[in-house]
């Protein structure tokens, strides 16, 4: 048996981690819900209880509706690009490139992931610039000048421009995850499929897809919850504008809390984000489990 001092030591080693998790993750989560029933301003100790007022405001706030719609749009496009397209691209890398080149490609596609979103977003303000932007310049050069427009300054295109920057950065990330999990598929599965006369496309659907379904699930969960918590891209590229056309929940929460100084209402928006991400993660986990049975 271990001595008593050793058992005490074991608990002591756990203590720093418990303090960090308790103080900076679990407490804020609980406090946030409490805050959402009150009204207070930045830096003031006074918090007045207002019951459900913040939530009543939440359900009727037209900007919350816009933000939520944008988050859903973000999620849908992200799933298409970072799960469907990225999975197909990953399979393509492994089929059409020799091994060495595949490894190099995997690293190269990952480079945008490494660059801070601030730098990426500032770079893309040059790409999307209304008058001299690279994209408009490119469109003119190939004779599509009539498509040129102020991508970030137009209420209909702003959110799509913002979403495309996220895809530019993140597809390489999920691709890497898919490539690594595809490299773990036993080759004899493909050989057997080939013997049965399955072509490349058939092999993709009957071997690659089912063999990587756990990774697909993980990437789905990451992508969807990422889409509902996104902040940097819209904040830096458009600040949620023009108007509120590219506002998402996280940028709206920031604006309500730190600019309009309604911290209670900001907490209610944060709680909404938490509930949505939690529900979506649990929902997807459930879907994945039933799919496996």
């Amino acid at each position, binding site marked *: 048996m271990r001595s008593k001092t050793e058992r005490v030591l074991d608990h002591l080693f756990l203590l720093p*981690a418990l303090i960090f998790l308790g103080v*900076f993750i679990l407490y804020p989560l609980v406090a946030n819900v409490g805050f959402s029933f009150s009204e207070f301003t930045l830096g003031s100790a006074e918090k007045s209880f207002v019951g459900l007022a913040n939530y009543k405001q939440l359900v009727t706030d037209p900007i919350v509706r816009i933000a939520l719609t944008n988050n859903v749009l973000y999620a849908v496009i992200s799933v298409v690009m970072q799960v469907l397209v990225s999975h197909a691209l990953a399979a393509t890398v492994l089929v059409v490139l020799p091994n060495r080149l595949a490894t190099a490609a995997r690293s190269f596609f990952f480079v945008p992931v490494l*660059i801070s979103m601030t730098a990426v977003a500032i770079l893309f303000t040059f790409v999307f610039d209304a008058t001299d932007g690279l994209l408009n310049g490119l469109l003119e050069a190939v004779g599509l000048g009539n498509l040129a427009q102020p991508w970030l300054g137009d209420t209909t295109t702003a959110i799509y421009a913002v979403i495309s920057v996220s895809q530019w950065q993140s597809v390489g990330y999920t691709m890497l995850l898919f490539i690594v999990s595809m490299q773990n598929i036993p080759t004899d599965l493909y050989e057997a499929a080939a013997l049965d006369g399955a072509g490349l496309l058939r092999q993709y659907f009957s071997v690659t897809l089912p063999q990587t379904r756990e990774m697909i699930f993980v990437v789905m969960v990451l992508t969807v919850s990422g889409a509902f918590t996104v902040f940097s891209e819209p904040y830096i590229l458009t600040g949620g504008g023009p108007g509120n056309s590219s506002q998402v929940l996280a940028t709206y929460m920031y604006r309500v809390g730190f600019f309009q100084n309604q911290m209670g209402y900001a907490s209610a928006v944060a709680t909404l984000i938490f509930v949505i991400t939690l529900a979506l993660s649990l929902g997807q986990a459930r879907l994945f489990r039933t799919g496996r049975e």
Partner: protein
Amino acid sequence: MSQSHISGVRLLPGRLVLTVYALILALPLLWMVISSFKPSVEVYGRPWSLPTAWKFENYSQAWEMGVSQYFVNSLVVTSVTTALVLVVAALAAYSLVRMHNWVARLTLMAVMGSLVISPQVSIVPLYDLLGRVGIIDTYEAMVLPYVAYRLPMAILLIRAVFLEVPRELEEASRLDGCGSFRTFVNVYWPVSSGVLATAAILTIYYTWNEFLFALIFVNSDELRTIPAGLMAFRDALATDWGVLLAGLTIAAVPIVVVFLLGQRFLIAGITAGSVKG
């Protein structure tokens, strides 16, 4: 899938698609690096040509205009955060492997639960808390929450490796008269260099690029890390694009280099934990 018996012609469409994708990624980055050596008039004026005269001063100017300070801040915040994460996580993982009671089980549940909580949700209470403790606008205001939000990932990764340590090794160490701490140092620490490197790279990657906390918890320009600092830098420069792009390039290069050096560990980490910043 093996491509050995597929003819070159059939590989062409796939290769074409990948080339287009590579160009979409490469062109903006290439443009950024080339334009960072240009005077501002040429940045938009001749977007796809090389600079008429390479303007290396853009880099020294960006460096002196605050990027050097942001760089130092990022280095301090990233290294302190990483060191703390490794030590705290390794000790916790060690305890979790050795303890078999409700404390261990509850902690493990809390760790796993914390993994799915996104920092965005906690912004208001964290700001409130840091304000009451009086550390808003300090390095600590960034470091402490960063450590907390990286711990679940690090603990789970390190614990997985510690679980593989044979019981006999630990028994032997105890019979040799080693206590908890000596056993940790002699038996567990040596096997963990790989996973510690993985956890370190993941923490560096997250901390170096973190934006939200850095933006909200720090107000003084002297304390800003690169991601938050670049915003102030952009606003200060207005139309001095060459210098701005030099600043962006300085911000991007170190982490790409660190990645190329530690690629193995990063890939091991993100595939094991599949954790996104």
